[in-house]
């Protein structure tokens, strides 16, 4: 468990605020639909449901959520 906590803190620190990033007027690419974190939420929902009912893991990308008997 502590290993997880350490990874999380390290990653958050990395995401600090040096000069990495894009200027507000350079966000043309980042605004593209296919550059969004989840460009196709319906497809993601369907995939999460399949893998939730066929594997023992869930979550990570968004809320784990099951909402199904999935036998």
């Amino acid at each position: 468990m502590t290993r997880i906590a350490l990874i999380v803190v390290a990653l958050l620190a990395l995401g600090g605020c040096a000069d990495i990033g894009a200027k507000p007027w350079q966000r043309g690419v980042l605004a593209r639909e296919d550059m969004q974190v989840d460009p196709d939420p319906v497809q993601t929902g369907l995939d999460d449901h399949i893998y939730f009912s066929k594997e023992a893991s869930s979550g990570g990308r968004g809320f784990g959520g099951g909402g199904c008997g999935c036998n």
Partner: protein
Amino acid sequence: MKDKRRHGNAALRAATLGLLGAAVVPAPASALETPGEQLAKKWEFDTGLLVYSESGGRVQAAEPVLKATRNFGDDRMLSFKLVLDTLTGASPNGATPASTPQTFTGPSGSGSYRANAGEMPLDDSFKDTRVSLSADYLFPVGENGKFGYGLTASKEFDFLSAGANARYSHDFNQGNTTLSAGLSYEADEISAVGGAPVPLALMPAAVSGEVENENEDEDEGGGPGAETKGVVDVIVGLTQVLDPNSLVQFNYSLSTSSGYHTDPYKVLSVVGADGEPLRYVYESRPDARTKHAVFARYKRYLFARDVFDLSYRYMTDDWKVQSSTIDSLYRWNFNSTNYVEPHLRWYQQSAADFYHAALYDGEETRVTEASADPRLGAFSGYTVGLKYGHTMQSGNSWSARLEYYQQTGKREGVPEEAAAGLSKFKLEPDLSAVMFTVGYRFKW
């Protein structure tokens, strides 16, 4: 002959302005607007249909989805989502193959299903239709914050679920760094057909080889009323823009659930030294589970055209299941209205500590929890797929994706006393499925 006029009329415009010696002339507004364009289209619909088909006569499913989103401007959005899910076919019931045909009583005790000699027993008596509805509202908070909350509900013939979630995200560093946190609660009610069986209790009247008569009193061993379970999910995430063409995302999610986790329709074979089944008992799972997952994603825009997306998830829980998932997508936008997106996913998980392929004679009285559900076994899986998307003149778009998913089981949880006997059977149920999705998005 290369057509010089290809790239717009900038040359013509410059020459004309030169001729007329006009001063700075504001950009031309479209004078010939068609009235239709002004009418802002209010609702955006995102529809999809998934057809899922496992080989070997196992589970088949069709899942249409309809999502409607109303954008009020200023980052204010309301969305509704309806998912239907029709399931048919058979899935492993947990019992091991036997050298002689086996008969199992169906969950309602009315029907029964058989497995031929040497065959992996499959419960084919379940047909299921699930309806799930969710609503979500997102609105801005102050200059850089966004808050969203939603409700979900879903209904199957033996399963009812209702949940709520809320999440907040805040932009720092001119929008380059976004921290988000979310909380969700879900209450499930499982009303198994014929009542939930007593954990590890004997499956009634399922003596291999004999055909049972119908009017057997079926609620023997069935527990009273429905079982419930509560799930609380917490997720915190960071999205950091690295440069104008790439970003990284890190999520940590914690999921704790307490209550009834057992699958009322799954059993375990209790075998003798020769590996043949003596009797069957219902499975039993712990009534609590805590899952931790760490997720990282890297997304990059390449060659001023394509998008590469690579993500990794590590999950561990107190059922001692540990899993790694690598997911990679490469979207090739070969022109402004079409793309092709190959997809590769690799997954690997270890077995739960109470996973048993089978129990040795008498072991069922010594264990408190045991399950032979293949989904709790050790296996690795890969998915390979290809998606094609097209945007039409009107701005609407459709997409089609064909994927193949293959799971390969690892031999674990075999009682030593019967290891030799069981070695003649294939205990790790492999799974292969084809998944076809079509999607269509339009404004109305």
